[in-house]
Structure formats: structure tokens, C-alpha cells
């Protein structure tokens, strides 16, 4: 049994929340630059230019790229041969969030109760999703999620008869309703199947993939590409000012589902597609 110290988890989570907020992942930056080259509409090209410049300033100044430094979404994949010592894993993660948001000068955007709305002042708690996997590694992914885009996300329980067309329509309708609000160009996470809760989790989890990582199933990989083309025919464009680049990428994850159901969840992510991971 491999032992991992809770203190190490805190230290790594602290580092990840800070780095995620300052440094846009390389694949996202490349996608923005490629989109700019392909964008022929002047205002759209100029807007993409400013978004790229912003990411460069954030990196050079070691400053948050967006003032909404998010709620910390954390995915933990824990090998079944790992044992955490000297503390409870959840406390260790939240301590890392607390220290990272304070020291990293990140905005504290979490309220302790959704209706009484008092700020917890340290951005805890994180939203933590655990899975147990084979092996003796502990993988932690930290994704600060802004709510301008999170608020534009939707879930629907489709009828099985609505099928593929129903899924496509729902994704396009969600992007249409969101319009300029989620800071396009967006990244779209789609979860199909499972149950009500699983579909939403799949949609969120898909956003953790790198841009060159297509779904392993060729049918769904093709659907990722097709949906991106359809979304980029809407004309919403960067910031909703008009243009081709409404989205940079569509990710799909699927799961077996019930004979009576076809859940579909669409999680919208802004251009500040922030995530960092570590394997311990």
C-alpha cells in the first residue's frame, strides 16, 4: 500500500489553483491563435486578438487572467492501493484551496449557503468528485470554474425517440440561449446517458480533456467535430459581437443509460478554460 501525506495534497492543490488561474493551457492558447487566423470578420479577429493578449499579460504578470477565479472544481482519481496518512483527504484539498486563493490573490467567490448567501471568505468548500481506480497513483485535477459560463449550462431528459437529432438540437439551443453571456469563444462539454446526475458529471469531466484528445469511440469523436461545425455556423462569434468563432471545441462523454431515458447535459465553459493536474 502506497502512503501519501495529506500535507502534500494541500501543497499541490494550493499550487494548482494558483497556476490554473494565471496560465492558460497551451492547447487552449493554440486553439485561440488558430481561430484568429481563420476568422475573416474584422471585429471578431480584433476581439480574439485582445483575448490572446490578455492571456499573455496574465502569464507574464503572474496575475489572474479573469477576475472570476471561480469555484474550485476538483477531480480526484485515487488508486485503490493508495492510503492517505496524516489527515482526511477532503480537509487537505480544502486547505489547499484556502491557502491558494489567499496567497495567490484570487477572488473569493463562494457563499456558504445558496439562499442566505454569506461569503465564506476563503473560497471553500471546493466541489470534489472522487473516483476509485486501479493502481497506486493519486491524480488530482483542479479546475477553477467561473459562473458566467456555468450559469448558461443546461440539462434535459430527452425521450429515446429524440435520439441523435434531439441531442444536437439541445446543444445548439443551449449555445443559442447563452449567446454572448458566457464569454465566447466557449468550450462545450456534453454528457450523454447515465442518469440525471451522471450526465451532468460527464459533461463537466469532459472539459478536463486536452484539445487533441477526442472521444475514443469514433462515432462520438465525429459527433464532437460535427457539433463544433454546427455551433460555429450560428454566427454568435467572439463575445457575441458576430463572427465564426463561437466555440473552440466540443467534448462529449457518454455512459450506458436506461431503456426509457436519454439524459443530456451541456456544460458551458468560457475561453478561460482553466485546469491543471498532478499525479502523485
Amino acid at each position, binding site marked *: 500500500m502506497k502512503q501519501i501525506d495529506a500535507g502534500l495534497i494541500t501543497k499541490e492543490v494550493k499550487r494548482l489553483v494558483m497556476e490554473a488561474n494565471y496560465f492558460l493551457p497551451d492547447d487552449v492558447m493554440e486553439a485561440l491563435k488558430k481561430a484568429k487566423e481563420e476568422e*475573416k*470578420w474584422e*471585429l*471578431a479577429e480584433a*476581439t480574439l486578438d*485582445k*483575448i490572446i*493578449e*490578455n*492571456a499573455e*499579460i*496574465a502569464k507574464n*504578470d503572474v*496575475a*489572474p*487572467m*479573469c*477576475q*472570476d*477565479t471561480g469555484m474550485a472544481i476538483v477531480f480526484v482519481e485515487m488508486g485503490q492501493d493508495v492510503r492517505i496518512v496524516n489527515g482526511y483527504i477532503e480537509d487537505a484539498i480544502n486547505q489547499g484551496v484556502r491557502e491558494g486563493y489567499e496567497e495567490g*490573490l*484570487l*477572488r*473569493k*467567490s463562494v457563499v456558504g449557503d445558496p439562499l442566505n*448567501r454569506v*461569503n465564506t*471568505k476563503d473560497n471553500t468548500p471546493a466541489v470534489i468528485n472522487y473516483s476509485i481506480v486501479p493502481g497506486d497513483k493519486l491524480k488530482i485535477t483542479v479546475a477553477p470554474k*467561473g459562473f*458566467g459560463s456555468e*450559469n448558461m449550462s443546461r440539462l434535459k431528459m430527452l425521450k429515446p425517440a429524440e435520439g441523435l437529432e434531439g441531442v444536437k438540437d439541445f446543444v445548439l439551443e443551449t449555445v443559442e440561449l447563452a*449567446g*454572448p*453571456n*458566457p*464569454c465566447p469563444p466557449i468550450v462545450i462539454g456534453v454528457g450523454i446517458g447515465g442518469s440525471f446526475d451522471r450526465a451532468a458529471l460527464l459533461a463537466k469531466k469532459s472539459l478536463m480533456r486536452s484539445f487533441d484528445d477526442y472521444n475514443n469511440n469514433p462515432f462520438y469523436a465525429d459527433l464532437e467535430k460535427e457539433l463544433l461545425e454546427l455551433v460555429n455556423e*450560428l*454566427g*454568435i*462569434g467572439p*463575445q*457575441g*459581437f*458576430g*463572427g*465564426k468563432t463561437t466555440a473552440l471545441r466540443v467534448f462529449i462523454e457518454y455512459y450506458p443509460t436506461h431503456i426509457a431515458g436519454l439524459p443530456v447535459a451541456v456544460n458551458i465553459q*468560457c*475561453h*478561460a478554460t482553466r485546469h491543471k493536474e498532478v499525479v502523485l
Partner: protein
Amino acid sequence: MKKTLTTPLKVEDLKDLKAGDDVYITGYIYTARDAAHKRLVELLEQGKELPIDVEGAIIYYVGPTPPKEGEPIGSAGPTTSYRMDSYAPQLLDQGLLGMIGKGKRGQEVKDKIVEKGAVYFAAIGGAAALIKKTIKSAEVIAYEDLGAEAIRKIYVEDFPVTVINDAHGNDLYESGRKEYLEWLKEN
């Protein structure tokens, strides 16, 4: 077309602005978002005086990150504006002339903008590190207990925004997309 504006605003300053114009703002503007708007409108409903003078003012919908030592403000990009839609018309009635945020406004706000000759600008959502460079000073002037959501008076120099809703009823979120799609058909 690039234009400049200096605060405080007058209705005449805004009548030539058109949806899609790039505008650079210089002068003092206020920051406020959800919680501060709720308090401001509660004061108005009680017939009490506001802690800021909104006459000819611009309110920027932002909750910045904490500043680094020696800097006036942290990263400071716009938040989504529709959450302020239920409060904005009452502030426009008090003489507010400009709002900066991102995303669509409701019909009631758009109608009030036309009625008052006001304007709604968008700053680039997520361009918080870039925008920060145009903010030269910042001072919390009300609701300090709200932290990032407190009302700040900030001095900006050439703060870059785009006109979304002008005083003539135009909306860039509708016209920009329409023009792009028409251009696409022809090219």
C-alpha cells in the same frame, strides 16, 4: 469607429454613439455588482439618499481580484449584466447614463436606455488582466463588508469598451451577428 468619452457624461455626449463603436473611457467610474445593486435599490425604495452620485455616471459591473502590493486593483473584467437588469432601470431614472458589463440586457433595460438617452457598453469578458492596466486608482467608497462586491470609485484611462445598446435602440448582439451572417452568404 474609435471614439473617446470623459466622465461625468452628458446626454449629448452619447447621441452619436452607435452599436459596434469602440469607445475609450477616461475619468472616474463606479464599480458595483449584484449585492451592491440590491442595496442601492433598497435605499431608493425607502426614499433614502444613495452613497454615490449617479447623475451622469457610469457603473462598471465588476468584482475584482485582490490587488498586488502597490497596485490599485487586481484583475478586473466585466461580469454578466442580466443579473443587474431588475435594478438598472431605477438607477437610470436617477440619472445614470452608462453601464459596462457583458452579455444581453432585458427589454425593460433596453427601453429605459432609449428613453433616457443612455448607453450600455461591453468590455471583453475574461480580459481582466488587460483591462486592469487601464485602471489607475481605486477606492472603496461604500459597502466595504461586501469585499470584492463593494462599491469602488475607480479612475480609468482609455478603458476599452464596445457599444452594445445605443440611445437609438440598436443592439450589437443582434446586428453584429446578422451582418456577419449576411457577409458570409455573399463571400
